[in-house]
C-alpha cells in the first residue's frame, strides 16, 4: 500500500511539474465556458437587409422605419432598383432583401393587390428560415396596421419555452461542456500519459517493479480523477457566476454523477492506451473515437433528433449522451434520480464493462 501511495505521489508530481500542461488543463474549462457562453450562439440578430423601394411614400416609409427599428435587422442599403441585388448577395454584404412594388400607398388605398418580394440568402437553411420568419412578421404587422378594416381571422400562438424561457444559448451549452471537458481531461490525458510511458520505455521499468500492473494504472489515473473533479467545479462556478446558468436540481447528485462519468472517461482512456502503440495513435484515436462523438453524437451542439437514424442508434453507445441527459436534467429541469435512474444505470454498466475490458488488456509484458 505504501508503495502504491508513493507511486500516486510520483504521478502527481509529474503532473504538477509540467506547468504548461497544467495551466492549459485549468484554463481549458474556463475558456471553453466563456467561448460557449459569449460566442457560440444560435440566435439570429443584426441581419443585413436591403430594401428596394422604387417610389417612397408614407406607407412604404412606415415599413422601412419598422424594419430599421427592429434590433433583428440592420438596414444596410435602400435603393430604387433591384438590379444589383444579386451582386450584393454574392459579395455577402446583404443576407436579405425586401422588394416593394411601386406606389404602395396608392395600392393600399385602392385595394389593389400588393406584391411584396422577400429574398433571403438561403445558404444556411435554418438561419434563413428564422430570418424569413422575422421579416414576414414585420411585414404582416405593418400590413395589418396599414389596413385597419382588415377582418382576417387570427389564431394567436402563445409560445412558452420550458426549461429555458429566454432560449439563452449558454444555458444549453454548459451541461454539454461539462461532459466535453471531462472527456478531454480524463480520457485523452490518461490515454496519452500511459502510452507515453510505453513509448519512452519507462513502462518496462515500472512493470519489473514490485507494483502490480493494475496498481500502476490506478496510480496513473488517480491524479486525473482529482483534476477532472476540479474542472467540473471550475465549469460550474464560471457558468453560475458569469452566465447565471440555473442549477435547479441537487448539487450533490450532480457532483456524484460527474464523478461516475470521470471514471467512465478514465476507463475509456485506459482502454485506448492498451490498444495503441504510441502517443500519436493514442491522440488520433482519442480525437476520432471520443472527442468527435462527444461533440457531435451526444446532443451537445447538435440536437440528437436532427441526426439520421443510423447515427441516432450509434449515439446510444456514446457515454457522453447519457451523461448529458443527466446533467441537463439536473441543471435545467430540476430532475432527480427518480427520472434519471435509467441513464445512471446505463452509465454504471458502461463503466464496469470498460473497466473489465481495459484491465484485461493490460499486459504484464510489453508485446
Amino acid at each position: 500500500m505504501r508503495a502504491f501511495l508513493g507511486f500516486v505521489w510520483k504521478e502527481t508530481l509529474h503532473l504538477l511539474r509540467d506547468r504548461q500542461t497544467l495551466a492549459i488543463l485549468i484554463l481549458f474549462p474556463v475558456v471553453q465556458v466563456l467561448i460557449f457562453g459569449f460566442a457560440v450562439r444560435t440566435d439570429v440578430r443584426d441581419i443585413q437587409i436591403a430594401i428596394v423601394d422604387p417610389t417612397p411614400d408614407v406607407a412604404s416609409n412606415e415599413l422601412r422605419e419598422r424594419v430599421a427599428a427592429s434590433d433583428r435587422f440592420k438596414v444596410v442599403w435602400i435603393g430604387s432598383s433591384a438590379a444589383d441585388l444579386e451582386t450584393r448577395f454574392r459579395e455577402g454584404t446583404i443576407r436579405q432583401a425586401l422588394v416593394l412594388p411601386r406606389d404602395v400607398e396608392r395600392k393600399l388605398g385602392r385595394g389593389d393587390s400588393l406584391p411584396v418580394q422577400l429574398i433571403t440568402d438561403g445558404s444556411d437553411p435554418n438561419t434563413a428560415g428564422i430570418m424569413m420568419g422575422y421579416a414576414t412578421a414585420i411585414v404582416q404587422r405593418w400590413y395589418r396596421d396599414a389596413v385597419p378594416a382588415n377582418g382576417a381571422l387570427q389564431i394567436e400562438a402563445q409560445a412558452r419555452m420550458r426549461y429555458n424561457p429566454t432560449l439563452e444559448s449558454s444555458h444549453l451549452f454548459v451541461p454539454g461542456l461539462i461532459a466535453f471537458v471531462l472527456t478531454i481531461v480524463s480520457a485523452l490525458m490518461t490515454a496519452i500519459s500511459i502510452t507515453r510511458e510505453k513509448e519512452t520505455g519507462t513502462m518496462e521499468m515500472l512493470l519489473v517493479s514490485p507494483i502490480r500492473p493494475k496498481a500502476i494504472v490506478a496510480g496513473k489515473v488517480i491524479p486525473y480523477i482529482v483534476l477532472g473533479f476540479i474542472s467540473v467545479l471550475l465549469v460550474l462556478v464560471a457558468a453560475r457566476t458569469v452566465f447565471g446558468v440555473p442549477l435547479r436540481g441537487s448539487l450533490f447528485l450532480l457532483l456524484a454523477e460527474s464523478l461516475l462519468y470521470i471514471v467512465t472517461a478514465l476507463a475509456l482512456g485506459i482502454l485506448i492506451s492498451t490498444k495503441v502503440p504510441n502517443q500519436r495513435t493514442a491522440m488520433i484515436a482519442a480525437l476520432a473515437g471520443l472527442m468527435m462523438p462527444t461533440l457531435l453524437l451526444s446532443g451537445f451542439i447538435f440536437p440528437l433528433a436532427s441526426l439520421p437514424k443510423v447515427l441516432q442508434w450509434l449515439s446510444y453507445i456514446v457515454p457522453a449522451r447519457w451523461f448529458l441527459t443527466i446533467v441537463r436534467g439536473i441543471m435545467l429541469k430540476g430532475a432527480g434520480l427518480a427520472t434519471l435512474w435509467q441513464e445512471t444505470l446505463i452509465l454504471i454498466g458502461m463503466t464496469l464493462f470498460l473497466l473489465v475490458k481495459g484491465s484485461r488488456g493490460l499486459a504484464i509484458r510489453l508485446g
Partner: protein
Amino acid sequence: MRTILFLVRKEFLQIFRDRTTVFQIFMIPVVQLLVLANAATFDVKQVAMLVVDEDHTTVSSGLVQRLEAGRQFRVVRYTSSDAGVDHALLDREVTAVLHIPRYFEEDLVRRGRAPVQLVLNAEEGATTGIVQSYANSILASYARELDRTLPLARSGTSATARVAPLDLRTQRWYNPTRNYKYWMVPALMVSLTTIIGLLLTAQNITRENELGTLEQLNVTPMTKIQFIAAKLIPFWILSMLIFSIGLAIGKLVFGIPMRGNLLIVYLAAAVYLIVVLGMGLGISTITRTQQQSMFVAFFFTLIFLLMSGLFTPVDSMPDWAQRVAEANPVKHFVSIMRAVLMRGAGLETVGRPIIGLGIAGVAVLGLAVLRYRKSVA
C-alpha cells in the same frame, strides 16, 4: 535545394512506411467528413407533439390535421386534459405541447381571434426557434383557410372585399432545397484540413525532439531554413491532398454545388495552409513533449473552430467577439469556401481575404522560424 529535396523524400518515406499513420491520415478525414456531414446539423426533423384539445370541435381537430399533414410534427398523443403533460416533457417523450383551450371554435367565430398555447422543450434550444416558426406558419395558413370556409358571426366582414390583399412572396437563394449539407460540407473540409495540418506538424517536430533524433538533425550541416522547409513541404502536400479528397467526396457523395471557380478555392487553400503549418511549427517551438504539443494544438484548434462560424453564425456573436473573429484565419477560409462554392463569388469578393490570409501566413511562419532554435537550450 538538393538537401531539401532529400529531406522531403526522407519525410515522405517515414510517413508512408508507417501504415497505421497513412491509414489514419487518409481514412480519418474521409470517415469524419461522411459522419460529420450527417451529424453536424441543426436540421429539424419531425417533432413529437402532444395535443391537449379541450375544445373537441371540427375546427380544433382540423388544426391537428393540418399540423400532421405538414410533415414537421408528429402527434404522438392526443388528450383532452392537462394531466401528464409535465411528465411527458420532463421525460422527453414529446418536444412540443399544443394546448387548444375550450371555446376555441366559438371564439374564432364570434371574435375572429382565438388563442392557442404552444409549449416547447427548449432544452435543445438551437432548433426551438425554427420549430416555433413552423408552428406559426401552419397556424397562420390555417387561419387564412378558415377565413374562407368558416361562417362568421362578426359584422362588417363584407368590407374585406375592398382591402388590398398582401401578396408576400418569399424566395430562398443559393440553397432552395434547404439542404443542410450544402452549407456544412464546405466548412467541414476546412476543419479537417486544419486539424490534420496543425496536429501533424506540431506532433511530428516535437516527436523528434522527444525521441532525441532532433539533436541528430541539429548537428548536421543543414541550415534552419532547410530543416523547416523540409518538415513543412511534405505536410503542405499531404494537407492539399486531403483537401482534394474532401472536395471530391463533397461533389460525388453529397453533390454540393460548386458555382465558383475551383482554382480560387485551391489558391485560398494553398495560402491558408501556410498559416496552419506556421502555427503548427510555432506550437512545436514552445512545447517539449508530444503530450504538451497535442494539447496546445488541440486547445487552439477548438477555439479557432468554434469562433469560425463553422457551427454557429459569426453574425450572432457579440460585437467584440466578431472583432476577435476577424483575426481568426479559420473564419476567413470558411467564409471564402462558402462564398465561392455556394454563391459563386469571384476574386473581386474573396481576393482581399485571401491576401489577408497570405499576410497572416508570412507573419506566423516568420515568427515561428525566428523562434525555432537549432541549439538545445
